[in-house]
Structure formats: structure tokens, C-alpha cells
């Protein structure tokens, strides 16, 4: 029994040592601000045996994580990468978002007023 367990551990280690294959599923870039003094980054991932995933809920954590890095600011210049990495029997999905946090200066007196915000509920 212990020899079987040892062989399993060695086999797992050997498989893990194999180079992984990372493929890019999708990429997107939004407009990039002039003020790039505050870069932010967040990533979420989900690993599954044999690449069998039962939901995509792991993506839901991405936006809150970005917002934590940029409280009360404007997140823009966002580069989003969705990639898959396969380790033979295990695969990992990862979504990485990097961007910039911008704090817009308050409006000066005498400047034209902003357009009124859209009413909710029509």
C-alpha cells in the first residue's frame, strides 16, 4: 500500500514538473488615462481536476477586488486577460485585470455644469 502511495506521489510530482500550457482565451483593453500614477491589479482563478468546472462564479470576485484597490476613484485603462493553464490532469482558469485608478479633480467655479444624471426607474 505504501509503495502504491509512493508511486502516486512520484507520478504526481513528475506530472506537476511538466511544463504547463497557458493559452489566452480572450483579451480586452479599454481607453487608457493620462494620469497613470496609481496602477491597480486584481486576479481571480479557479482550478479543477480534469478541467471540469461546475460554475463561473469565481469571476464575481474580480470587480470587488478592483474596487477595494481604488475606493471612490475611477478605474480605467483596464487590460483584461482570460487565460487557461493546463497541467495535464488539472487546469486553472484565471482572469487578470490591470488598470489605473484615477481621482478626477473637483469642478472649478464658473466651469460649465455637468449633465444631470439619468433618472432611475424611467
Amino acid at each position, binding site marked *: 500500500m505504501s509503495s502504491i502511495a509512493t508511486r502516486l506521489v512520484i507520478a504526481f510530482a513528475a506530472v506537476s514538473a511538466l511544463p504547463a500550457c497557458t*493559452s489566452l482565451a*480572450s483579451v*480586452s483593453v*479599454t481607453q487608457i488615462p493620462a494620469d497613470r500614477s496609481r496602477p491597480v491589479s486584481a486576479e481571480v482563478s479557479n482550478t479543477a481536476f480534469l478541467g471540469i468546472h461546475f460554475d463561473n462564479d469565481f469571476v464575481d470576485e474580480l470587480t470587488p477586488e478592483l474596487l477595494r484597490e481604488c475606493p471612490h476613484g475611477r478605474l480605467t485603462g483596464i487590460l483584461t486577460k482570460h487565460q487557461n493553464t493546463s497541467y495535464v490532469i488539472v487546469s486553472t482558469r484565471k482572469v487578470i485585470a490591470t488598470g489605473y485608478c484615477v481621482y478626477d479633480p473637483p469642478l472649478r467655479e464658473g466651469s460649465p455644469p455637468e*449633465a444631470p444624471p*439619468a433618472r432611475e426607474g424611467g
Partner: protein
Amino acid sequence: MRRSLLPVILVPLLGCATLHHAQVDEIDASHGHLTPFTLTADEIGINTENTGRAASAVSRSEKPSQVAAIVALFQFGPKTGNPVLNDDFADGLAEEILSRCPSGRVTGLVSTRETRDYNVASQERVTIRGYCIDN
């Protein structure tokens, strides 16, 4: 035998449409009237496997399929739709978007990557739909 081939011949002529990717950009309707526009860029894609298979069926010879299998080794890699000769066929859309809008102000862009498959060949298409903001 020939009648039974009719659906096999006719159905691919209609083309099967596939949507690979779609993305929606922000839509800003607060700066003026919006005029819609649509831009497309196409390229012919070739399915070498199906081409070899069709040629083998017509000629009743295995050679076209074998050649197609060898050619497939030279087209190794991830494929969205069928392979094309030039991957920059859609690069001109960037300038076309701005030239389509005289005001130069654009919003609500929806970008899609599509394929219309005709079995041995296909139409690989990039479509950009959007709105010009009129002054």
C-alpha cells in the same frame, strides 16, 4: 445515390453562421442624437480537412485526404473558424470607424467575430456596430 447527395450539397451552400466572440463597449446617449452604423471586414477561410475529404469523395481516391492531413501539420495551433491567409484583414476598421462619423465622436460599439461556414471554405468576418454622436 445522387439524390441523397443533394442535401449534402445544398445545405453547405446556405452556410452555417457561428458567433465566436462578442463585446459591448460603453454606450453614452447623453451627448446628442445617435446615428447607427455597421462596418464589416471579411476574409476567406479554407477548411483543408473538408476540402481533402470532398476531393477524395469526388475522385474516389485517398490521396487528397492524405495530403490534407499532411497540410494540417503545417496549420498547427488554435483556430477560431477556418485559417485565413492574412490575419490583418480587419486592421483597417480602426480608421474606418472614425471616418464613418463626421463628428469623430463614437459610442456604443459592439464588436463581433463571426464565421459563415460553407463546408470547404468559409467567410471569416469581423463586424463593428456603433453609433455616431451627432453635434
